[in-house]
């Protein structure tokens, strides 16, 4: 077994270019992370398009904690805890629906979808009680950026805007790919369970060192051009936006090739309706540039990953268990494009995905390895000598460098020692 520190001293476990294995396997550290990361910072919860109508709701989560993402009667988005304040019963057992009230099945307390207690059952037993004291728990802060809903259990702290910082540009880049500037996540989520710590997944999302090896089987049998983005000759970059947000910037490669929709492995002739809609919306020049640049590949700390054609949500369940929720990106006003996005997403991700099954296999092997004694330290030195700053002051490196992972851990240490 690994040497476990008596009480985790994060400064001695996270160094600039190496991290201690116990960070992935120590149960106490996981509990600390829940308090200091998942229940304190901004966490992505869901998208406005998942609750399009008044009184729609969908069950989501912040870390292991289930929350109800609700659009109330007046159209306002709310995040309520899915727990009856009377005796703690799970309030809503359905994954989605449309309703103005929730009634607890245990003793029939009824709540409006704003979270207020409307009525006690057998109310004579509650004479003189103030209903206002018995509403549902709420996520105190909600922030929405361009349809992406984030929640924070901290009453105060940085605004969502400050928190997202440079990563906002990635979300803007994403939405530029819709002729209407909006997403509609309507295809439902695949839920892929893995016996691995959540941080192995977080780090892998912008690890450009692995694709050539982990995905060599699929690169060999399909004519995907993805492999080339992550080989030593690629001009693609890794970037650390700060606050733990990281990206691959593939635009240098796409701009070099200068072909609209090359990033999606297709061309304008195959998606005429989409090209027409984009040109109508943005004008020919800007539309062409958007279709050359494509969508981002960005990991927004700690749990929202935009992977070109997919949206992933990372949900930690336990120190050694994580769920990847994934769906196809769907752009408003682009049905022909969306169909292809769904088809490619279904082929590549989820439990039977031709790409993600192999990543997930690696996470599980990582996790088992991390529990082994020697060496206890895992190294993150790749590309240190060529790390540099871009014109915005963000650290960048080659697409195969460990710039993002070092950035993630730098932020992690700040959060865990704050």
């Amino acid at each position, binding site marked *: 077994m690994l040497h476990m520190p008596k009480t985790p001293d994060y400064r001695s476990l996270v160094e600039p270019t190496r991290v201690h294995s116990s960070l992935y396997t120590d149960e106490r550290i996981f509990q600390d992370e829940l308090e200091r990361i998942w229940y304190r910072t901004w966490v992505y919860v869901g998208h406005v398009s998942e609750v399009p109508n008044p009184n729609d709701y969908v069950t989501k989560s912040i870390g292991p904690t289930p929350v109800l993402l609700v659009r109330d009667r007046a159209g306002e988005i709310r995040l309520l805890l899915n727990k009856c304040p009377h005796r703690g019963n799970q309030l809503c057992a359905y*994954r989605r629906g449309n309703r103005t009230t929730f009634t607890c099945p245990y003793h029939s307390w009824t709540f409006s979808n704003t979270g207020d207690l409307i009525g006690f059952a057998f109310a004579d037993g509650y004479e003189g009680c103030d209903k206002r004291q018995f509403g549902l728990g709420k996520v105190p802060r909600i922030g929405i950026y361009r349809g992406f809903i984030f929640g924070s259990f901290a009453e105060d702290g940085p605004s969502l805007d400050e928190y997202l910082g440079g990563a906002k540009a990635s979300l803007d880049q994403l939405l530029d790919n819709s002729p209407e500037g909006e997403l509609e996540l*309507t*295809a*439902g*989520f*695949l*839920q*892929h*369970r*893995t*016996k691995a710590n959540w941080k192995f997944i977080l780090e892998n999302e912008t690890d450009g060192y692995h694709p050539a090896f*982990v995905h*060599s*089987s*699929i690169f*060999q*049998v*399909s004519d995907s051009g993805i492999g080339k983005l992550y080989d030593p000759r690629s001009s693609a970059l890794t970037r650390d936006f700060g606050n733990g947000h990281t990206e691959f910037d593939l635009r240098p490669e796409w701009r070099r090739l200068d072909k609209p929709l090359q990033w999606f492995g297709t061309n304008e002739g195959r998606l005429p309706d989409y090209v027409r809609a984009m040109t109508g919306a943005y004008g020919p020049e800007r539309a062409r540039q958007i279709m050359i640049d494509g969508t981002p590949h960005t990991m927004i700390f700690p749990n929202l990953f935009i992977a070109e054609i997919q949206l992933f949500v990372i949900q930690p369940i336990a120190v050694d268990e994580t*769920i990847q929720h*994934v*769906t*196809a990106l769907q752009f408003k006003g682009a049905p022909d494009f969306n*169909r292809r996005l*769904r*088809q490619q*997403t*279904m*082929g590549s991700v*989820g*439990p*039977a995905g*031709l790409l993600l*099954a*192999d990543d*997930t*296999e*690696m996470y*599980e*092997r990582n996790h088992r390895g991390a529990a082994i004694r020697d060496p206890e330290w895992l190294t993150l030195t790749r590309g240190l000598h060529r790390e540099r700053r871009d014109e915005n002051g963000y650290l960048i490196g080659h697409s195969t460098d460990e710039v993002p992972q070092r950035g993630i851990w730098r932020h992690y240490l700040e959060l865990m020692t704050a």
Partner: protein
Amino acid sequence: MSSTSASSLTLAEAASTGSDHAHRQEDAGELMHRIEQFLYLEARLQDTHAYDDWEALWTDDAIYWVPANGHDTDPEREMSIIYDNRSRIRLRVEQLKTGRHHTQTPPSNLARLISNVELVRQEGDEVHVRANMLVFEDNLRGETIWAARNEYTLRMVEGAFRLARKKVALVNNHKPIFTLSFLV
């Protein structure tokens, strides 16, 4: 299925003869037997990772579907765990054959049971079949049990059944599930 072949006498034809109950029973039994033998063959090819032989079972217009989030979703609008046409079935098999599809390297050890086989209906040269399936998987992670209610469309091609459509409706497909990378 050709109606001139004695062994492929349809249920409707068998029923319409009306006169010989025993004979009708025998033909229906023979058809069920052939269906079951085909399902067992497919199961064995999957359990033994006989990728080429398994791929050869599919028709050119095949659909291989493993829905998510329920059993009656629309795969053209909603995410499925697998929604493969014939060319993606081939890609899946080719990836497995590279020997570098890590989640199947080493391959899972598998044993599956197929049971509750029902002939739903027969249309021309196709039969629609239902069966339950239980798969025991052993791999590096540990042991997993998978259960599904399967639906098949089998088509008679040159005297043998082929898979035209297969739906694997995992009973827990609305929950998070582990990697499912063997041939299910």
